[in-house]
């Protein structure tokens, strides 16, 4: 029997994350292909093991603080002792640091941005999203116990199932050099983009702050709100609370119109719940068109005013 497949269980404010459950679904498939067991690694609150019943067993070390440094040290130690075949790590802001650091300590690759993982004649092959989603690479590793960073949304979440068996494991942690102090909540006030039916999302293609007016006018005509991709937030043209994606909000509008957004996986992650997605982009090969229902391959500065007028005319 091949050695086990592991999933690093990610916990956020007292709960196991959805991404962890998705990785358990994927991990189960991979374990099935290689005839091995699926184990979850829970570093922290043992009571959360109850949510991890999709695994055959949960390895739990309760004394680990939720800092990348501590999680990485604990994970690397367990991998060395128990030599799993592979470790699936959520490719999220929360866990990518710990995965990268643990892999560095173990001198194994941390295979980045995997949307799929399969066993091919005993070798694990990951399908990785690279170059902002423009290309994908099929990647295998030459090492044992490789870490794979798996994107959110790779599979549906596994249901918790029956209470799993839990194996308590001991880890010794180095003196902490990175200490958590507190959370800073997003500033309240302004529009809650997670509650909107219509969102106009602007990306770097909008070019200047003045041009934001175009998006505001379209949003006003459609009765929606404006949100944005990372570069627009970085520029300070919209507040952090209006960022959609990996570091931002998960939105679920009935209509999501993207203006000058390339469609990087970190952005698309945030719109899984959107019903109708439209993209306007000058680059016919932009990955955003693979994540939209309707596309207009044209200059947003020409399309948006025309669209605003057409909406107004239609609404009368």
């Amino acid at each position: 029997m091949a050695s086990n497949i592991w999933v690093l269980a990610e916990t956020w404010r007292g709960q196991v994350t959805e991404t962890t459950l998705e990785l358990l679904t994927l991990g189960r498939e991979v374990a099935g292909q290689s005839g091995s067991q699926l184990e979850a690694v829970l570093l922290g609150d043992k009571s959360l093991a109850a949510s991890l019943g999709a695994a055959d067993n949960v390895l739990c070390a309760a004394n680990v603080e939720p800092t990348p440094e501590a999680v990485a040290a604990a994970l690397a130690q367990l991998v060395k002792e128990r030599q799993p075949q592979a470790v699936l790590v959520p490719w999220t802001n929360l866990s990518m640091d710990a995965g990268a650091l643990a892999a560095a300590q173990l001198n194994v690759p941390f295979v980045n941005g995997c949307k799929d993982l399969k066993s091919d004649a005993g070798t694990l092959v990951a399908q990785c999203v690279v170059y902002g989603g423009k290309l994908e690479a099929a990647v295998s590793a030459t090492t044992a116990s490789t870490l794979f960073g798996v994107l959110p949304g790779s599979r549906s979440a596994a249901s918790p199932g029956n209470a799993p068996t839990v194996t308590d494991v001991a880890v010794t942690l180095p003196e902490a050099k990175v200490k958590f102090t507190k959370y800073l909540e997003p500033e309240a006030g302004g529009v809650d983009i997670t509650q909107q039916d219509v969102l106009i999302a602007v990306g770097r293609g909008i070019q200047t702050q003045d041009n934001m007016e175009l998006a505001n006018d379209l949003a006003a005509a459609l009765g929606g709100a404006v949100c944005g991709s990372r570069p627009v937030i970085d520029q300070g043209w919209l507040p952090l609370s209006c960022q959609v994606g990996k570091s931002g909000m998960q939105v679920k509008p009935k209509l999501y119109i993207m203006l000058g957004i390339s469609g990087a996986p970190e952005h698309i992650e945030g719109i899984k719940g959107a019903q109708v997605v439209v993209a306007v982009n000058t680059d016919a090969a932009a990955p955003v068109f693979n994540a939209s229902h309707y596309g207009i391959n044209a200059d947003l500065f020409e399309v948006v005013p025309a669209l605003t007028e057409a909406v107004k005319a239609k609404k009368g």
Partner: protein
Amino acid sequence: MNILVLLKMVPDVVEELEVAGDGKSLDTSFLRTIINERDDHALEQAILLKERHGGKVTVVALDAPDIDDTLFATMAKGADRAVKITDAPEGMTTQMAAKLCGQVVAGLLPADLVLTGVQALDDLDGLSAALVAQQLNFPYIGVVTAVTAGGPTATVLKEFAGGVRGEFAVTLPAVLGVQAAEKPPRYVPVAKVRAVMKTNKIETVSAPGDAGAAQIEVRQLAKPVVSSHAEMLEGSPEEAAGKLVELLAQRGLL
């Protein structure tokens, strides 16, 4: 503060990317490269810290097409030194490149902070910041969006999801993987870069030692095979807009 910034060039993904004949790598014949966006933020954060606390910013990069222009631009923005690593093997993975860069960085110590982008568009086998931290035996944290220094620790904000950030106290010296600087990267006029080219020099060091072998194999590089593609609305901007409005009306979205 003494700050080292590690940066690299990546393909500009706004351009068309073509796969080479081997089906496993990028066709570099017409490739336009730009500074990795996250590294640009790391540089900006370093310069902001220097402006607040004084000190020196040293930029380190592997040789690449157009790297000289990028390095001169970093000095025009406020970096004090630029070091280029030459004679490195072609086609290194992130792990291999980090091995070389880490050794060069080690030779440039002491430093209070080593800053680099949390991720690059072409990373496949790890994240540079974590790899370099491991080599230097420095603490590391990534997805950083603000740094306040002063004293033996830095206060660092890390971005989680949903707009929530976490505050961490990090013992210096440390490596930080920067997601975004506190302000957008500054713009520097071409004239200023030209002036810097006349007065400043880029230092070079030969790639030290061995980068090791790749621990991954890229079996295939290809355009994504997608289960769905948008229905494209053709015609003039007015026509396409008109078609979209009809579709939205049909779906009861107006």
